[in-house]
């Protein structure tokens, strides 16, 4: 009687143990598999971009009304940052040209591709932290594309990505740490990335399953190439001071080898 209870108990305990050990092992495996899946998902059933026959969508981003004024960043919060600049640094939420052309606007095909998946480019996207600012400030990557995060400053930065669909991460990068590699595995526009040590440092990442996106330059211009024929919703996204972002949609139909222009006008705040 006693012995049988003990035996059962010991079986039970060893079972717990084995399950426990296995799940520990599994977690690691699952982690690896997830990593594999990231690469795998991008390579299975992929569409390819036909540059020769695809259409080109280009356009200009302009502001409607006055742009919110830039303000000086008080970099004296960290002497290393202050020393990196000779002139006062201004906030870079809105970079607007004299004619109202808006830089750092993320333009992408939001709808109309029918969920086709494209292969991630082998080229890595590099984000540089220099002078306590992100370069670039707004960028797009594809699901599965490798991102390298570099710290060129003699101070610590932390990379705090708080997307809603992608897993959040918050990692420190003291001066001298090698580049960090990251892969984002879900479509999401946009993921805010911040440095909590330097409160003014922020940037945004757009993650898409297709390569049809662009970021407007200082001249306000953007260009998306190789778009297959079809009707699309093209969206322009720009950050706002409250960090939520604003976006404007437009419908457009393109045929093969078409070249169409879509201009966007963003409301100033």
């Amino acid at each position, binding site marked *: 009687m006693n012995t049988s209870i003990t035996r059962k108990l010991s079986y039970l*305990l060893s079972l717990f143990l084995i399950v426990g050990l296995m799940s520990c092992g599994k977690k690691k495996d699952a982690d690896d598999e997830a990593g594999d899946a990231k690469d795998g998902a991008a390579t299975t059933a992929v569409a390819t971009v036909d540059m020769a026959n695809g259409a080109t969508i280009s356009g200009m981003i302009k502001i409607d009304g006055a742009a919110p004024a830039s303000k000086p960043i008080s970099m004296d919060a960290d002497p290393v940052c202050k020393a990196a600049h000779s002139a006062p640094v201004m906030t870079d939420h809105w970079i607007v040209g004299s004619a109202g052309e808006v830089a750092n606007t993320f333009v992408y095909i939001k709808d109309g591709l029918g969920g086709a998946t494209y292969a991630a480019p082998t080229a890595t996207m590099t984000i540089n932290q220099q002078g306590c600012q992100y370069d670039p400030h707004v960028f797009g990557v594809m699901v599965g594309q490798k991102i390298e995060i570099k710290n060129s400053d003699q101070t610590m930065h932390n990379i705090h990505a708080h997307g809603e669909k992608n897993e*959040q991460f*918050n990692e420190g990068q003291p001066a001298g740490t090698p580049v960090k590699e990251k892969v984002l595995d879900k479509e999401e526009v946009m993921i*805010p990335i911040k440095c909590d040590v330097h409160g003014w440092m922020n940037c945004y990442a757009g993650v898409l399953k297709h390569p049809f996106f662009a970021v407007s330059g200082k001249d306000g211009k953007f260009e998306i190439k190789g778009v297959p024929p079809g009707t699309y919703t093209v969206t322009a996204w720009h950050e706002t001071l409250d960090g939520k972002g604003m976006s404007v949609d437009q419908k457009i139909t393109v045929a093969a080898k078409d070249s169409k222009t879509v201009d966007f006008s963003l409301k100033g705040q």
Partner: protein
Amino acid sequence: MSTIVLPKEIKGAHDAHGHHELSFWRKYLFSLDHKVIAIQFLFLSSFFLLVGGLLALVVRLQLGWPDHTGWFYKSMASVFGLIFSQKQITGGIILPEFYNSAFTMHATFMIFFAVMPFLMGTFANFLIPLQIGAGDMAFPRLNMASFWLAFIAGLVMLSAFFVPGGAAGGGWTSYPTLSAIPELSGVTWGQNLWLFSLLLSGISSLLGAINYITTVVNMRAPGMSWMRLPLPIWSIFITAILLLLAVPVLGAALILLMFDRTLGTSFFIPHGILVAGSPLTGHTGGGQVLLWQHLFWFFGHPEVYIMILPAMGLTSEILSVFSRKPIFGYKAMVLSMAGIAFLGFIVWGHHMFQSGMNPLLGTTFMISTMLIAVPSAIKTFNWLGTLWGGNLQFTTSFFFAVGFVAMFVIGGLSGIFMASTPVDIFIHDTYFIVGHIHYVLFGGSLFAIFAAIYFWFPKMFGRMMSERWGKVHFWLAFLSFNGVFFPMHILGINGMMRRIYDYTGYAHLAHLQPMNAFMSVCAFILGLSVLIFLFNLIWSIFKGKIAPVNPWHANTLEWTIANPIPHGNFAEMPRVFRGPYEYSAPNTPGDADFYPQNVPPPGFSSADPTAH
């Protein structure tokens, strides 16, 4: 107090597991025998002592060379780089979030998986039945469950290093909201596993505590009155009561925090939290941050005494044996332990003087904290009294016991600085407190544990540990210990905050780097001394000299049993005739300097059961 002399059957003699050969599993793995469970706890705690020590070296490596230069840093960092992953040590640089995990898990492993199971697993299990003259614990199956729960809890805690986000990094105190909101710490599953593991380990402690209390109350051999109990048993008994009252409070707090993290409750999360500048979503708020601190320290302060009281009991025994003298002031020793246990429940607020708690409460807690130093002082004076006029035997065990007293004095005195509220304003959360706690827990508890292992090893394994390597262990440990931890007081007085990854960015702290480097090297030597100890331990199990039945000429009951101790411990029920510390008594038969508890006085007739 009248003695409880109930004729009791010897447990084990009649059980099904009495005398037939047991299978390997039942004998060594899922054993119900308190001695085997004690040894299981010994190996478990030794393993986690190593893990905790390794993490301590990671912390010291970073603090010694925060600029990541020098051949010593580089070579050690590459060694650690092999043990830990890329996410933890990248390109020879210990990342700040891993640094946070390292000191958090160092404290967690050392407190909950090394010191506590050494004292309240190994020695409580081994000594209670043997010293009170019982065949086993009152509840052998609870006992087994207690060990295996601790084992699983340890595995869960270890597994936290392998989950995304890394192990918990909010400090061993895990103050919310840092510990409650994953977005703020970057730690996701690691913190959940930490909470779950501590809950398991808490249940394990509770099972143990119930068992110890029941056994001590009910299963003492005839003649073993309360005032004849060896002091280790008193200390373990009082500690078990502390565990029983304190651990459930921790359990409640752990569960509430787990709810906050996983179910979206807001017990500890107030309204209006910002995460990287935007409002926190998923929580309504309305919680109280300080509630956690009250709950945690209501457990946490008794916890400190849970880790020091058994150490005091073990030291008292060892000092008396090697002084060949009765313990000085037995009753005062027992009363002061009871006093510490009682006062231990009303001093928790001294961890919170700067927390924003009402300053008036600070006054209250300061007075109770000052008072709790009194019983500790009484004990110290009694230990000195025990040495006075003794015939001191310089064994390794005695060295460590004396080391305990010497270091505990420093730990106790440095505590007074922090008990004084205005001085605490300055030294709170600096390295001063880190130095203080290590003098109490390493120089105190761990030295007592070493002393006790050298002392009871012959009874556990039937062999002696090497005295030569024991002395090497002692001197290395004693000197390097002081080399690591004494300077911490000076760092604290210079204003160096604790849990800080790189202090060289502060103008008033940068000059402390050479001293930190010195401390770090001492820490590596300290680690080496522990390795020597563990090798000695393992080597002696197989190759040590065969131990005599009573190598130290001690009085307590365990030394009357031949090695190896059989299942059921005592062939016949022992009978106790005197207290445990009758050393060098003038009337001892045969002119011996010890008088075992079970030896009948001359002229005693066993026919008369009341004559003793």
